[in-house]
């Protein structure tokens, strides 16, 4: 017996470690409610601080192996990134305008290359924005970081986009996998290198039929939230299960139907909000007609509406209230709840590989986030 134990055995693999999210809904609600209000008061400029606060909340309540992550980015960095991006984009927009006027003269699709140029810029922005967020992510006193080139990524994204068009969208899983592989192979946690191992074929097998179902759903549009919810859930599961950091493997068990409820709740809220808003608008107009002497019939209605200042103020206040509510609803369900549900499905295998990682890597600037803001592109 004792002789057997003499041979060194590899240590048994540790059990899978869950990822937990403990953020309180009430706390998040207060954060986004206040944030939406401040965003309106500042005519949108608070967005940099709100985005930061939301990320801080989501990160710090996300714990892996019992230790919570931390987001170290700040709103001011996003603002500076935005200003720099604007300083670069404004001359480009101007040049774009002049060149497109010159190009239109020769008719046809002369200005198409310029649109392609903006697409490339958008892809660059997506890469650099991911890099900014990753370098602001800290777990156990060590940060994530990213190298690689935003332009090299943009080049790959463009070639894949061309392939996507040529195959009428069927190349989608291969494009996703290739681009994610580039992003992940240039991502690191300390001295641990990332990778992406999900098979595009695996995704294709699960979503190929959507390619046929979407035309049907455009007619039977109440099915669209199911289709979209299914697609997002499958995509999340596939993406998460493909993530690697050294020997650490992620696995997600997200059910394909896990997000249906959230999308329907958002739709329900929208219907309710619009119903309330229209009832309110109608009520205000009726009250104004009754007590303000504004006649709502006849040809002078529009002019009378425009000249009734209290009525206009009431309408604008209603509009502001519905915008606030919509922004709170969207962030609550589509950001926080999706985050919580997706994370609850994740577990980590091979956590022993991160037992002793050395810190490495530098911070990246928020320029990419600024471009993403200026060009209206979103990426994860």
């Amino acid at each position: 017996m004792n002789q057997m134990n003499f041979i060194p055995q590899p240590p048994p693999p540790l059990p899978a470690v869950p990822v937990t999210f403990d953020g309180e809904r009430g706390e998040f609600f207060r954060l986004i409610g206040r944030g939406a209000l401040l965003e309106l008061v500042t005519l949108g400029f608070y967005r940099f601080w709100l985005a930061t606060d939301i990320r801080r909340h989501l990160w710090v309540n996300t714990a892996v192996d019992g230790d919570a992550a931390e987001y170290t980015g700040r709103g001011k960095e996003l603002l500076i990134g935005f200003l720099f991006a604007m300083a670069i984009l404004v001359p480009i927009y101007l040049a774009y305008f002049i060149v497109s006027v010159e190009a239109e003269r020769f008719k046809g699709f002369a200005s198409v290359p310029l649109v392609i140029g903006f697409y490339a810029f958008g892809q660059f922005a997506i890469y650099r924005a991911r890099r900014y967020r990753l370098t602001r992510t800290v777990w156990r006193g060590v940060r994530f970081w990213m190298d690689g080139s935003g332009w090299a990524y943009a080049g790959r994204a463009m070639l894949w986009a061309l392939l996507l068009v040529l195959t009428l969208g069927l190349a989608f899983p291969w494009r996703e996998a290739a681009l994610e592989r580039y992003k992940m192979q240039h991502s690191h946690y300390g001295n641990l290198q990332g990778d992406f191992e999900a098979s595009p074929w695996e995704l294709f097998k699960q979503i190929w039929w959507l390619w046929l179902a979407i035309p049907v759903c455009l007619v039977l549009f109440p099915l669209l939230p199911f289709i979209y919810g299914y697609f997002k859930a499958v995509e999340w599961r596939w993406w998460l299960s493909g993530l690697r950091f050294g020997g650490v493997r992620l696995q997600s068990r997200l059910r394909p139907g896990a997000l249906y409820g959230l999308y329907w709740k958002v739709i329900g809220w929208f219907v309710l909000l619009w119903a309330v808003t229209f009832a309110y608008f109608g009520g205000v107009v009726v009250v104004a007609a009754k007590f303000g002497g504004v006649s709502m019939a006849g040809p002078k209605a529009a002019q009378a509406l425009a000249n009734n200042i209290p009525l206009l103020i009431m309408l604008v206040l209603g509009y502001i209230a519905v915008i606030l509510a919509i922004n709170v609803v969207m962030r609550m369900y589509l950001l926080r709840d999706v985050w919580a549900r997706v994370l609850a499905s994740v577990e980590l295998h091979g956590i022993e590989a991160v037992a002793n990682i050395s810190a490495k890597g530098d911070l990246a600037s928020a320029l990419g986030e600024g471009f993403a803001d200026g060009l209206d592109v979103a990426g994860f």
Partner: protein
Amino acid sequence: MGDCDMDDTEQDQSPQATGGQAIYFDGLSNRRQTVTVVLSNQLVLRSADNFVSWPYPDIRRVDAPSGTLRVSCLSASPLARLEIRDSAFAAELVARCDRIDENRLTHGAVARIIGWSLAAAASIIVMVLFVVPFAADRLTPLVPPAMERHLGEAAVVQLQAVFGNKTCDGAGGQAAFAKLVEALRVPAGLDASVGAQVLDTPIPNAFALPGGRFFLLSGLLAKANDPDEIAGVLAHELGHLKHRDNLRQVIHNGGSSFLIGLLFGDITGAGAAIFASRTIVTASYSREAEHDADSFAIEVMHKLGRPTAPMGELMFRVTGKEGDKQLSILASHPLTEDRLERMRAEDQPPSGPPLLTAEEWRALKGICK
């Protein structure tokens, strides 16, 4: 190393020194260390193989899940973290660090963000209302006419897509039209590069394109009763050409749309507010240009000794009374009744010769037949 003072000498065991357990990450590796923390005249933490002290004034709170105090130290490695889960002990540490919340976004800081944002928004509004119109006026003369013509050529391509290529060129009508345009062009101070055409479409309108071309639509011709009515409208379009209004509006609307787009950012649902502001701003600028083109037309008609009221009558015949139908703040033109009133006020009895003979007028009316 990145750690703070590592001196062993300073270990005064003052009576109020307290201690407790904490979790420590040194910021150099992700090793999770359980350490004993002693709060003496500095924060001292000790593990089996580590000894670190953090001065209280350098300690800052960082994000932590509820129920945990997580701090960093300015003079230590930037990502070194100490986590205390015992709330009583955490409170004791917080009491000793008087600058622990210095990095926090305080109410004052939020107020400053609001203040600066409002200042930025105000400056954008000032830019849109005053600087952009000024810049459009000053930049327009600097744009080479060749480039303006390119803009016009691009517009002609779109125009042909909308109206087809149905230019009218009845021989007598064409001669009358050329005579009328020539008669107006000289007092307007425009050179001979001005090109004009009649398009065959029932829409009653006329418009100028960048680079010196303008079009009269036969629908308007059909509604006109005499040459002075058409002459006034053409003089108005010449005013647009003289002021290079198309180019000015492209510059103005591009600039103001871009600036307004900087506001509101990603607020869902704010698109309506952005759209409304853009519409109001561009409509107001357009009304101003129309007003100036009317002034120019009045001036040209005065120089020719012809009455100004007829063009107002023609426009009124086409649109009817507008005030009841639309919001004046969104209108791209001044209300027709106001324009008519102005042209009547400026009206003078004819002192110059008629611009077209009765025969030429008949030929012009029939240019598209």
